[in-house]
């Protein structure tokens, strides 16, 4: 299946249909330049890989996309509109979901509740309507719960649905985090090193899951990852950055041939 994706004559996604435009982003922490004018576009409906050696600025870029950092310069446009004027908590509502590099689950809550929190941006009830548990609140709750159970089935989390996530194995927690992100029904899903800490089989399952998410749920995926074989097998397009700058862009094959990328990973031949 990988080969079909990679060698299909027309690349997946319409080049004119971009979902995300990152233009000339720069982030400085004091004197340190974490990102130095990075620009790239993400086409709708693809898996876009984002690679780079340690400290290249991947996570910084990621945090700009979920509005945890404010870039010093440049613009980020999602579906044609800048996101830089919206507060972080609105990202989920406009359709940008994310997972975290080192698990950021709600440890004391059950798997079911964690995934239901994911549906927060897709529900409306407030303190007053909840306190009185108005009929429409019950209906909203039932819908959220139904959607969460659908994801629990999808991710095969049935056996642990009522367990606190804090005590679950790492790989399972990663799946819960994916479920939580999917519950927000994102159009763009940001995955920050999802393969970190997973074993070989789990990485393969993750690769299949990412492709399923793209194909079954029409979700565009931006994947930051160190695990090269995973990135190369699931990405339709890849952007490589190093020292805060873009050093290459293209299909996995093109990136594998790209001299700048090879140098960044293996060092420049003297």
């Amino acid at each position: 299946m990988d080969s079909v994706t990679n060698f299909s004559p027309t690349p997946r996604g319409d080049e004119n249909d971009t979902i995300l435009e990152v233009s000339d982003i720069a982030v400085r922490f004091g004197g340190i330049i974490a990102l130095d004018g990075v620009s790239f576009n993400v086409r709708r409906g693809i898996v876009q890989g984002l690679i780079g050696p340690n400290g290249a600025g991947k996570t910084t870029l990621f945090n700009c996309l979920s509005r945890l950092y404010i870039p010093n310069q440049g613009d980020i446009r999602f579906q044609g509109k800048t996101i830089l004027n919206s507060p972080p908590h609105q990202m989920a509502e406009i359709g940008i979901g994310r997972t975290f590099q080192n698990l950021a689950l709600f440890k004391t809550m059950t798997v079911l509740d964690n995934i239901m929190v994911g549906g927060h941006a897709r529900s409306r009830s407030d303190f007053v309507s909840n306190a009185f548990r108005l009929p429409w609140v019950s209906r909203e709750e039932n819908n959220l719960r139904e959607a969460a159970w659908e994801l629990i089935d999808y991710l095969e989390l049935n056996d642990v649905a009522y367990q606190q996530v804090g005590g679950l194995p790492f790989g399972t927690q990663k799946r819960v985090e994916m479920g939580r992100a999917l519950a927000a029904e994102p159009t763009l899903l940001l995955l920050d090193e999802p393969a970190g800490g997973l074993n070989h089989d789990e990485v393969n399952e993750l690769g299949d899951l990412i492709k399923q998410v793209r194909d079954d749920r029409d979700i565009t995926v931006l994947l930051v990852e160190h695990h090269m074989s995973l990135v190369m097998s699931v990405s339709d397009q890849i952007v490589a950055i190093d020292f805060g700058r873009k050093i290459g862009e293209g299909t996995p094959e093109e990136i594998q041939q790209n001299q700048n990328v090879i140098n960044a990973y293996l060092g420049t031949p003297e």
Partner: protein
Amino acid sequence: MTVEKMSVGNRIDPATKLKIMNIELPQWRAFMIVAGLALAVILPFIVEGFSVFQLTQVMVYAIAVLGLNLLTGFNGQFSLGHSAFYALGAYTTAIMIDQYEITYYWTIIPAGIICFVGGFLFGLPALRLDGLYLALATFALAVATPQLLRYEHFEGFTGGVQGLDVFKPDSPVEFLNADQWLYFFVLFSGILLIIGAWNLVRGRTGRAMIAIRDNPIAARSMGINTAAYKSLTFGVSGFYTGIAGALGAIVAEFVAPDSFTFFLSVWFLVGMVVGGLASIPAAIMGGFFIVYGQNFSEEVVINLFGDDPSKKALIWVFYGAILIFTVYVVPNGVAGLVRRWVARFAR
């Protein structure tokens, strides 16, 4: 391969079912609630007058602890200042009754609303404070409140050092005396507030509150407006504690600055921790501990060492020992103990 797993329609929380010695107890929660309610209704008829007063006080403190628990247990924000909200509620009721001659039951909701506003406004700057710093800021609130109530230029309103008298309402029904009537009035208010709190924490708002406590950054990424939720939770917490204060003023028939010192905040904190964090039934247990914990220590010390005045100091030593025992042996409070017990028998 995973068909077996996937086909399960088993979406029932195992904790709703209990199995003890092969006897299934599917409705054990409903059973506990009904039993608790029945006991609450019968108790004031089988105990003496002063005990009825104490039981009323238990419920009042339970409401205050519930308010604090919504803030600290569920939302993770510390407060040593809840005596201030309790005082604000108590004075609102006392002033309305004493100076404007408003019937007592009309004063409860206004007291709650004023404390909601107070809590919300205090919650806004508190957004910038975490953990110990928030504890310190709320401590300042607790320390300042009695002084403000005592302040001579407010005396016309607050009654200054003397405080204000609140007349105990007569019972409107024949078969209840005034104490019993007040007990049922407070019980009824408490039940409504518990239902409201339960609805809050089991729904979208409760999940957001807990999510913020567990991981604020992830909560924000999930679309939760953390600032709004934290300050509104502060407001709701103030609302509950303010209503407790309003009811407490009627029960005590009196308000004065010295009833609302920083120590009252500490009692709420103790009640919350002993009862159990992030649990609603725990608030009732906390209320019992605040009222009876001290008496219990006294009884035990007298039984062990005899009724000797020189042994009085041991009462507090014993009380302290109970607290240390609680945090070491039942770190999640009485409610946590029950939860663990349920988890063992749930199948």
